[in-house]
């Protein structure tokens, strides 16, 4: 049960994000400099606004306010209802990711200028804090759950912050994966996070530094295919946790989406291959839909590639449930 969104962006898709309030609203940011809002059930493009350059990430605060950022260094705010837009603030380099924190009502942004910045969304240009990650530590991804902020930077570093006290990271870790981090996503139960690398691996880690908890962490291989006798290893570009079951989806440059049961270390599903790399994934708020951005992610430089598209997959009740739970229920 899936369909493709009509009127997709005209260039590569950088991020797909579902609305926290309306379960059918999907935000899509793209290298074509637009941020587009779709209704996935009506399959309708509801609106769109522009940046001056490619947009790398976007997020909702409530159902009607959007924040987006990209290569133009700006974080832009857009009101769906009034179409008011303003620049929340700017970084010194392209902004790779932006996320809203509901607990503090702030916007967090991470940039290739090696900083994380917090912004008060009630006022324009109110930078609440600027935190340098260290030399060369371009922010490649971060994820936020409640007060926990996990930042993945260049050099395979991970910083775990408490968003209320950003002066010092709570923990500083080296990635358990050997190669560049592509994506990090916090578990909905706030216990830990999953991260993926360009080299076909996903690691599941936990916040609690006690050795007992740390012993539970693991990493596994995925998104691989044998081509010409070589086990070809694809980057894992996207991760998304199911909001209620705690299982997660991974999307790779092989165009495959897998659903994993992190508790039992099992793969639950593998969906048929999509036309090109999976650039971004997101479950909607009740976990009934999975948005899948199939869009070439530049693994092989400039080349011809299938058109950029967003697929909406309807997730049936048990599709993403951990196995042992289904067994117990039966």
């Amino acid at each position, binding site marked *: 049960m899936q369909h493709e969104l009509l009127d997709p962006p005209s260039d590569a898709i*950088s991020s797909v994000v579902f609305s926290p309030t309306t379960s059918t609203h999907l935000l899509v940011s793209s290298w074509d400099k637009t941020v587009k809002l779709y209704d996935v059930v009506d399959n309708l493009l509801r609106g769109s606004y522009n940046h001056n350059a490619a947009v790398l990430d976007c997020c909702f605060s409530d159902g009607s306010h959007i924040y987006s950022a990209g290569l*133009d260094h*700006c974080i832009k705010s857009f009101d769906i209802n009034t179409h008011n837009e303003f620049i929340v603030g700017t970084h010194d380099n*392209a902004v790779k990711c932006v996320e809203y924190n509901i607990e503090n009502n702030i916007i967090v942004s991470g940039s290739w200028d090696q900083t994380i910045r917090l912004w008060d969304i009630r006022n324009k240009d109110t930078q609440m804090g600027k935190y340098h990650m260290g030399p060369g530590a371009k922010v490649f991804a971060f994820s936020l759950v409640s007060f926990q902020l996990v930042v993945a930077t260049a050099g395979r570093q991970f910083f775990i912050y408490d968003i209320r006290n950003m002066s010092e990271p709570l923990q500083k870790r080296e990635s358990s994966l050997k190669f560049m981090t592509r994506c990090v996503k916090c578990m909905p139960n706030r216990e830990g996070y999953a991260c993926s690398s360009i080299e076909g691996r996903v690691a599941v880690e936990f916040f609690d530094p006690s050795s007992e908890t740390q012993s539970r962490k693991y990493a596994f291989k995925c998104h691989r295919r044998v081509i010409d*006798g*070589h086990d070809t290893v694809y980057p894992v570009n996207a991760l998304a946790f199911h909001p209620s079951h705690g299982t997660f989806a991974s999307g790779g440059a092989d165009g495959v989406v897998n659903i994993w049961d992190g508790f039992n270390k099992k793969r639950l599903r593998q969906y048929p291959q999509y036309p090109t790399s999976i650039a971004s994934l997101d479950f909607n708020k009740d976990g009934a839909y999975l948005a899948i951005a199939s869009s070439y992610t530049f693994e092989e430089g400039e080349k011809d590639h299938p058109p950029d598209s967003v697929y909406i997959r309807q997730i049936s009740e048990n599709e993403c449930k951990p196995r042992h739970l289904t067994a117990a229920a039966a």
Partner: protein
Amino acid sequence: MEIHKDTQTSVKKETIIPEFSSFEHQKENIFPLKEGRKASSLSFIFGNDSSSRQAGLEAGHAKFRAELEKVHELDDPFDVYNQYIKWTMENYPQGQNPQSNLIQLFERALKAFVHDTRYKNDPRYLRCWIQYSKFIGQSKEFFIFLKVNGIGMDLAAYYEEYAEFMEGLNRCKEADEIYTAGISRRAQPLERLTRRYRQFLTRLSSLQETNNQLQRTESSQQPNDENLQRTILGARDSSTSINSTPLNIFNQRNPQSINVNRSTLSSTVPLNKKLGTDTNEEKLIIFHDPDGEVGNSALTSSEIPGIWRDFGTELGNKKENTKEAEPWKGATLAQDKRIRMPMTEKFEIYHDKPETSTKQVSSSDTILTSNTNAPNIRPKGNRTEKTFVDLNIIYANGNEYSLEELRAKSKSHDRPTSKTNSVSEHYEPIPGMTPNPPNPKKLVKKPSPTINTKAAFADIMELFNQPLNCEQNEDYEEDGEINSKQTNFFNQTSSDPKHDIPKTPQNHSTFDNNVENIRPTNYSNLCEHENNRKIPFELMTPIRETSREYKLNFIETVGNTDRLNEIKVIADSTSNLIEKEEAKESYSDALEFLYPMISNPCNPLDSKLIDQVLSSLKPPLNQFPGLYDVRDQISNNHGKIEKLARCSVKSDRRHSTNSEIPIELFNDSFLIRQKVGEGGFGKIYHVLDMNRDLEDSQKSRVLKLQMPPSAWEFYIIRKLHERITSPMIDSIITVHSLYYFKDESYLLEEYCNHGSILDVVNASKKSNTAMDEILVFFFTVELLKVIEAIHKVGIIHGDIKADNCLLRLEQTSEWNSKYDPLGANGWSKKGVKLIDFGRAIDVTLFRSDMKFIADWKTDDQDCVEMREGRPWKWQADYYGIAGVIHCMLHNEYMQITPIRVEDDTYSSGVVSISTRKYKPIQSFKRYWQGELWRRLFHMLLNPTLVRSDGQLPITEELREIRRECEDYLVMNSNKIGRSLKDMLYKLETSSEIR
């Protein structure tokens, strides 16, 4: 199930038989039942929406389940099951599916009563079994099972069903046996059973009849037919031999074949005897069943040893060879033998063994691993592992670049992908170019102080361009920097006080911006600036931009003061025009005066665009000397000319000149001599100009007919002759006049009688030789010179190929055999002549950053950019020249192949990683100046890689390499036996004879 005793009710029921259409759409989903289905229930099932139906079903299931709970207390427990089954079959017209679980229900019901004596001969129970068998597929085993367990042994239905099944398999003898057994057992209802048996016998005899006839006709007409049809083990002709035994063991399984019919026949012969209908003349064929399958006659019960207590379930019967689950403890799981880790180690120890290919890869990779931090292929067990992304790119120079950064760096995102401007400089970490972040305050539009018309105009302009103002502002801020950096025409003129060009700084900024960013000028923004500065109306129109650029090009290239003045006049007239527009304050008129908003890249040969350009020329086109603008007349001469050309070829042209009918074009008349060429755009004739008082030798002209008419080529050639002052103008065809009719146009050009380079190539190909390298060098130099000249004046030929390069071998009194690059000693008379400017582009008409897109069908002779649909500009000609040179060297059209660019070009950040390098497939001969040719081809095929900033045109670089070629020519032109002069002379004479 419900029996309506009340006739009224049943009548009532019948009156409301639902329409077939109410469930027709579902008809494929209905499993047929022998007794049929009720239309009303079907329409009820398919008519209701799924949720209410689901609820009904749930309720039904619940009811039956409840009844089954207490089934053991009932007198007739099977009745509950029977009802349940009937209900299920009625409510699930699809038959067996996971929802109905019909088969499982059957199995449950049937299994419960297999050994219940009460139901041994219960017709309901038997019917249930039979229905079940329909779902799982009937088999002999099924009937045997029933027999063994004594189910339905006294019921006619069993025998009927069994016999029918056997008959269906063409085992009529057994069917017969079954019927007789049933009758002898007096199975009830006996009457029906005997009737069925009689029917069976009738069927049988009629079948026999037809078979006999068939056989008789066969044996009489085609005596050999039987031999033909005899299968593998067929024995002697059976017509005479009693012992004939068709041993075809397949016959029972191939009911379709004639042989089977026969064997059926033979097996039923005794029946015929019994019935006294023995019309069969044929001898009996004894049935033979070699594998004894049929011998186990259906009714001999002894074949089942012991008691067959359970028929099994459908699932169980389907399941084959599934191993029972057993405890894992102590068990060993079979492993794939190939994956054995110690083996790999062994391989590494024994060096004397021949290394496998994978081993080699892995060993080289270990070295790689130790050297670089990012190997792409690593050994992993027996298999190598390869990361899909190029780790050398990601971890370039000790830095780490995410895929997004790479994409951002890639040139492709400098190119405009949409209406908005790319802001590559915003993120590219170029030292010294740290951009100022756009200040949001600048976004606020200042209220316009002017009147309504202005606001309206601004609104109109807004429609044209959506890009945000902040980037424009930024450009403005960076203006100074760019000014100092760039040395383009505009800056030169702005610093040149001689020329009175109205220019404001903001215009300037836009211009500079255009150099880098190919995008329509942001008009509204301009207006805004102007509003702020209270300049009444200083809109910069593209036409003025054009005239200005045009002028600037002249300043740059021609340096001719006369021309400058002339152009100044043009510029002035343009500004006058604009002033007039201002006076009227009618903006729509002003807009009309503009060029259309040309997209960038554009199709340079777009007819609308060309019309626009030609109609807005200053001075107008019809003031060009030699142009006869008769667009109000229809000429329709092409048919006539074509006919004349054919006639004149037939007749001896030297003698029939006078008798020929001249063609009148406008006021001039021509004698058609011969068709010289034909292309997609028109035809080319050799004509004699009869008007001017010319000597015979100079009368020869070329008339180029074009349909539809076009003045473009005329315009281009005129402009070339206007702009090029150097002697190189000799290398460009001269145009005498253009007759511009409504339906066709005639371009009168000079006639060259030496043919084209293509002719030379073809001639040498015919004689299995190639052009001498010296000769190729000579023409290469000439081509480079002419292309330099036309590029300098802002013209792209666009269609350079061997057949568009004519030989220019004029007579000369003094001709030194030593080559002179400056054209002295007669060398200026020799060279090439470029023709066919139909695809030419006057780039001075466009903004300097304009690129072009080809909309025609491209082939190997078009440059890479055209073929790949990318925008191009000067590349077209470079590729064309390379093609011509290749043609001369190899006698073949050029084909190119991409080669890998070294990795470091990526990290330099300037050249995009997508840039590919091309080279011709054909390699150069060992004794050629390979190095020189290679460099030349590299430049011509990869012009964007020549300069570090990828800028075009590369005229200077080409001039350098041309000098090298000239030096080589000077050194080698005069070798004995290989003299350039001799070769050219040979060409001159041979081509003249042609």
